[in-house]
């Protein structure tokens, strides 16, 4: 542990979000949950092609993190990025159409689930290469630092990515450049098929970040209020020119690595334990305690209708013309 460890702490605001904000975050989480439920269903129906990875159980990380960002802040995300894109403001209808390979998709059917991106919302892409989004976010933050308009970049990645070179090189550069970037390590307990417990030697992930001189904090990732408070502290600090921060979000991947995963590796009883810590139910309980009953149920119902409409429209949308296969190559 570095001697300056005390200086490396991030002090999130302790006050919980107000009921209005909580309700808004709950709406985001409900939309992510409903989107992912539909993705699973549509994959089984054969409407989603290729590989698809869902984020049920991890909605609070996306909603709480992106909730503090402005429209022109940047994010990079992963192969499991639907939630981050939705939380950053992406429209689920073209997203669903993209997963269906349609011309009306976010990327006109050229990218698919793993390559969702919308530059107009600062979404610099999901990514099919584990860890690749980390240095990309650092580069966006470098550009933001040059512009001095207070923009920040958030890099979402899993705890499986902290072993790859891109993560470490990204950390090194973020420190060297004091780039306004916040590293959000979503520890969902599984790196693809491999339980992360015991997957690395030495102390935890925070110490890795601290070793690079990056302030680091572990956060209850299923508590959207705590996520938001931590990210807000880190983002404010980055906007103010204080450089990068690292947040480990403890959460849990309720589904398989990909849709259709038989999950022979799943630790017995673990999923049931984490179901007790469902991020949506947690906010619902908080709101109920404040006198607002049945909010989650209503928001989920609303979101499910929205996603059913997205599916209907995606199914009706045309596929790209085969003649257009060379479009967008660029060089």
């Amino acid at each position, binding site marked *: 542990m570095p001697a300056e460890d005390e200086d490396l702490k991030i002090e999130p605001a302790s006050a919980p979000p107000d009921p209005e904000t909580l309700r808004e975050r709950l709406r985001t989480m409900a939309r992510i949950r409903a989107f992912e439920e539909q993705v699973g269903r549509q994959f089984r129906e054969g409407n989603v092609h290729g590989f698809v990875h869902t984020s049920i159980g991890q909605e609070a990380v996306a909603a709480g993190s992106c909730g503090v960002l402005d429209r022109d802040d*940047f994010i990079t995300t992963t192969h499991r990025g639907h939630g981050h894109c939705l939380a950053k403001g992406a429209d689920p209808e073209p997203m669903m159409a993209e997963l269906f390979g349609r011309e009306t998709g976010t990327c006109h059917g*050229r990218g698919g689930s793993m390559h969702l991106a919308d530059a107009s919302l600062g979404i610099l*892409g999901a990514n099919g290469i584990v860890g690749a989004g980390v240095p990309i976010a650092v580069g966006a933050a470098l550009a933001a630092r*040059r512009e001095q308009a207070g923009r920040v970049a958030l890099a979402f990645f899993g705890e499986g990515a902290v072993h790859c070179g891109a993560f470490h090189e*990204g950390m090194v550069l973020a420190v060297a450049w004091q780039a306004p970037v916040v590293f959000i390590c979503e520890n969902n307990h599984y790196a693809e098929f491999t339980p992360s417990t015991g997957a690395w030697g030495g102390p935890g992930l925070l110490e890795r970040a601290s070793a690079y001189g990056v302030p680091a904090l572990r956060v209850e990732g299923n508590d959207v209020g705590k996520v938001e408070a931590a990210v807000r502290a880190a983002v404010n600090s980055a906007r103010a020119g204080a450089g990068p921060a690292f947040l480990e979000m403890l959460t849990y991947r309720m589904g398989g690595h990909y849709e259709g995963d038989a999950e022979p590796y799943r630790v017995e009883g673990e999923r049931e334990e984490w179901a007790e810590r469902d991020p949506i139910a947690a906010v619902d309980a908080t709101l109920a305690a404040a006198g607002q009953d049945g909010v989650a149920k209503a928001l989920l119902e609303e979101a499910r209708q929205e996603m059913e409409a997205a599916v209907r429209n995606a199914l009706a949308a045309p596929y790209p013309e085969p003649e257009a296969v060379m479009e967008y190559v*660029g060089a």
Partner: protein
Amino acid sequence: MPDPTATAKPPRYLDAVNAALADEMRADGSVIALGVDIGRGGGAYGVTRGLFEEFGADRVIDTPIAEAGVLGAAVGAAMAGQRPVAEVMYMDFVTVCLDPIVNQAAKLRYMTGGGVTVPIVFRTQTGGGRSGGAQHSQSLEGILAHIPGLDVYCPSDARDAYDLLVAAIRADHPVCFVENRRLYGKRADGWEREALPPGRARLVREGADLTIVTWGRMVPESIAALDALPDVAADLIDLRTLAPLDVDTVVESVRRTGRCLVVHEAVERFGPGGELISKVAEGALFDLDGPILRHGARPTPVPYSPGLEAAMLPDSEGIGAAIARTLEG
């Protein structure tokens, strides 16, 4: 651009690269340069000298030795509105940072259906023949040209180095810009030549006996080979850019000469010569008077010892022998 009237000597190849960077950085505030040792140190070969002093640490960025991270960051900066020129000190080192080049920069515009553009230049240099050893001497442009979404420019002289680097920086797509360090000290002859865009080959010499197709340092080597063969008249085509590839100029020439030799510094095995020969066969097969040949490096890692390296790399003498074989075939 260096003013040729302002100095007694025309600019060297490395001056031209430096001038293109400086001119574009003056013209466009979003152009930034980043790479290992390029700032205060002026670059491993002095190519970026003076840029740090003129444009400052904010735009001429010395990076840690973390090429994959640096190139990834360049991709992010490009999507976020900058025009990064990222240097990979030796072309061999692109193998430690292929992901940002091949999986990210080359594909992002396509994968996003045109949603993002990646205006980025990957500058690098190669050049065997100086005992750099197997990890500092390779010509890997064929690997890069294989990837849809990447342009690959390989200037053979100072004028093209300037024109092509300016074009690369202004392009809205990724360009791999391959310099040759053995050309760095060569002064331009014909600096006031008309600028050609990428994708246009240049006919360096004209002649009816055969067509020689080449690029980079093999252009002057081929000129030397032809100078030693006064009885041979060849069309010598400098491709200048492998992607885009000027197939028309090559095919049109081979239809006239009936014979074709492709020369490159890269090893022959699965090298760019194979692609070129295929294009010539498709476009000019029935005009050929003999087999299309290629002459490149032998399929071995680049050796260190000077005699071994000379035996491995193509040179003017070897090109001369290959010309003779092409004419006999």
